[in-house]
């Protein structure tokens, strides 16, 4: 048994290294799934943000939020964990005036992501927003957390 | 000290006793390259005290462990009171108590708490016996309330015996029970065991010292390197035994030596520490001592150096090629 243990450990390390460099990773961490999840989450949070600021709340459907996400630099595989860039397009005042919110998204292997707001400043630039009676509240759009099913 | 005077010990009556308390045949056990037991038979009638003897490493502990089911032999059959393990399941060890190697307990519990835990395992009314068991084995009541991690070897042996008593055993299996006891304790252990056997209980005990066991056992099995080299009653063994060896101290060693030369089948030699070593059978020795007296030589001391049985024991368990006599009871 003692002779087997180092061999087992070496075998396990070799297998894991091979898996890492071979690029056969989880196909479930794909652009479409990320886009679906983050656009829906963004829409809900936008409604929440408007409500907290005391503004009229748009309906989710009228927002028509749609995300377009890209992983790393063009040319890298568009599947897998890591840093993604998402552009979320939504309509505030009708289809003629689309707004694009930018997010830098860190996607983990478990299908959860943390999206850091990257503009426009009025939407997700600051971590706080001002509510009624000048209360400072957490800006729901500044940091967007979510998880999607990668299986 | 054990002083077990129990005049009215109830005997095991009203139960159809099987012919043999322990029936082990062909027990074989090996560990890798080493053979611990090689086709060992152990047949013990109820109500006797049977010794399992052998030098260290002969397989005594392995045999006793196999009786308890702690060790599963590669080959062989085992029945306790006519029951086999496969037939009886968990109740196979009902009425069987004892220990293998030094008894071990939970060090963070007291002696009393350990016995309560074990009594709880046994179920029934064993919990009520704890106090009696502690008193019976001579364990100090105050000591029984201390944690076991502070116990001496002798106290552990007593606690092990108490744990065995809780099971109301018909068969007691004890592995070197005299280990760690002083001579007084050993003497009392012998008395207690004799009392138990008189009540109809069967006792199997192991030892590497023939002298300890000689006075108490009815029959023995001698093991050497995992094989049985003798099994039978002690009187049979005595019949086969070579002469014993004695230490003799007289008023005139020179004259005694001369007399030994003239006596029938008596060999004597001078000892460096003083006195003589005399080698003779019991009856020849008796005649020799009487002859010394007639010659005017006083016997100041006569002690067994090695008894006859011990001589036979050493002979049987010597690493010699010659096969030893084998008899069945």
């Amino acid at each position, binding site marked *: 048994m003692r002779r087997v243990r180092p061999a087992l450990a070496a075998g396990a390390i070799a297998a894991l290294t091979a*898996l*890492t460099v071979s690029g*056969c*990773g*989880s196909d479930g961490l794909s652009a479409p799934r990320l886009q679906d999840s983050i656009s*829906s*989450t*963004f829409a*809900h*949070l936008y409604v*929440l943000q408007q409500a907290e600021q005391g503004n009229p709340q748009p309906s989710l459907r009228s927002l028509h939020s749609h995300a377009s996400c890209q992983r790393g630099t063009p040319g890298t595989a568009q599947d897998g964990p890591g840093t993604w860039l998402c552009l979320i397009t939504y309509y505030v005042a009708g289809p003629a005036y689309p707004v694009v919110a930018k997010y830098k998204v860190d996607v983990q*292997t*478990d*299908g*959860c992501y943390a999206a850091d707001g990257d503009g426009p400043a009025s939407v997700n630039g600051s971590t706080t927003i001002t509510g009624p009676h000048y209360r400072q*509240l957490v800006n729901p759009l500044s940091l967007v*957390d*979510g*998880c999607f*099913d990668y*299986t | 000290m*054990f002083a077990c*005077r*129990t005049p009215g*010990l*109830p005997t095991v009556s009203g139960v159809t006793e099987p012919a043999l308390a322990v029936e082990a045949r062909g027990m074989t056990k090996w560990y890798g390259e*080493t053979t611990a037991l090689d086709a060992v038979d152990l047949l013990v009638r109820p109500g006797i005290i049977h010794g399992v003897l052998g030098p260290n490493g002969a397989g005594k502990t392995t045999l006793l*462990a196999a009786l308890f089911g*702690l*060790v599963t032999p590669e080959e062989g059959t085992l029945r306790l009171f006519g029951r086999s393990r496969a037939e009886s*399941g*968990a*109740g*196979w*060890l*009902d*009425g069987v*108590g004892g*220990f*293998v*190697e030094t*008894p*071990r307990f*939970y060090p963070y519990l007291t002696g009393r708490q350990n016995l309560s*835990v*074990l009594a*709880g*395992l*046994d179920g*029934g009314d064993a919990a009520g016996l704890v106090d*009696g068991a502690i*008193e*019976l084995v001579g364990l*100090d009541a105050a000591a029984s309330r201390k944690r076991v991690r502070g116990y001496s070897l002798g106290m552990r042996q007593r606690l092990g015996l108490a*744990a065995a008593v809780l*099971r109301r*055993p018909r068969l007691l299996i004890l592995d070197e029970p005299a280990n760690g006891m002083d001579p007084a304790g050993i003497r009392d252990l012998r008395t207690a065991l004799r009392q*138990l056997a008189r*009540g*109809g209980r069967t006792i199997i005990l192991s030892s590497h010292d023939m002298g300890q066991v000689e006075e108490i056992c009815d029959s023995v099995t001698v093991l050497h390197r995992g094989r049985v080299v003798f099994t039978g009653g002690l009187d049979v063994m005595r019949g086969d035994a070579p002469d014993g060896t004695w230490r003799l101290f007289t008023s005139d060693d020179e004259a005694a030596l001369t007399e030994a030369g003239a006596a029938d089948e008596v060999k004597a030699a001078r000892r460096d520490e003083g006195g003589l070593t005399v080698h003779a059978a019991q009856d020849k020795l008796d005649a020799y001592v009487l002859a010394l007296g007639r010659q005017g030589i006083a016997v100041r001391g006569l002690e067994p150096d090695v008894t006859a049985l011990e001589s036979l024991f050493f002979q049987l368990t010597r690493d010699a090629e010659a096969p030893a006599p084998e008899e069945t009871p």
Partner: protein
Amino acid sequence: MTLAAGRWPAAVPPAGAAPQRSGTLVVYRMELAKLSRQIRVRTIAVCAVIGPFLVVAGFHVQNATPGDTAFGQWVHTSGFAIPMVILGFAAQWIIPGLTALVAGDIFSAEDHFGTWKTVLTRSRSRSQFFTGKFLAAVSYGLALAVILIVTDLLAGLLAGTQPVVALGGQLVPAGHAATLEVLSYASEIPPLLAFTAVGIMLSVLTRSSVAGIGGVIALTFVLQVVTLIDLPGWLQVALPSTPFLAWHGFWEQPAFCTAFWWGLVTSAAWFVVCGGVSWWVFRRRTIGVAA
């Protein structure tokens, strides 16, 4: 220390005793009694009760928010966020170790004290001992889970019952949030039981409490490192630590439970395999007797 006339208990025929309760149950109760006397078990129970309240108090006192965990940014907004932050962190790191402290020791402690030959020479079979000890370790894990569910819920409620922002961006009112929280904590029970079985298996194989407990803790660390690698989906699902994260799906909009069902399968597989190996090895073992 003399005893004059002790009464040696009369030997009774085997069939004459009072009806025995189930042997496994006897062993189970004995193990629970021994567990409840252990200092480490009592310490863990106390920590599980007061720990969540200390965490809540800690967040109350200082203004910083944990940045990189889900629900982290909401800890000062809603009392339901704090237990979820605790769950996110503690689940993978602490729960396996907590259950291993009992599971990794309950068998090997007997080897350590040399007491197998004391308890196995009574009228209880090895299978009764195995089942009794196994059930005792499982009971401890379940009790721990229930304590944590209750105290975390209460501690969170103390912090406030405002609606909490869930992982789908939706605002969840207090009643529904409490339900989701309890379900999330309860979903940790299958992987907890899986790790219990792993701890038992390691302690039976190695007969060492150090390997039993330390092995599970080491496995926890190894799994954390392994999950940093982008593994194929099937492999990730098969890891015993993955089910700890299944609760994420409960808080999404729309909620998804596929991770939970896969987690149930994985946990059950690890539980059965490790339990089976332990059982098989334990039955055949020679109990420590010098050859």
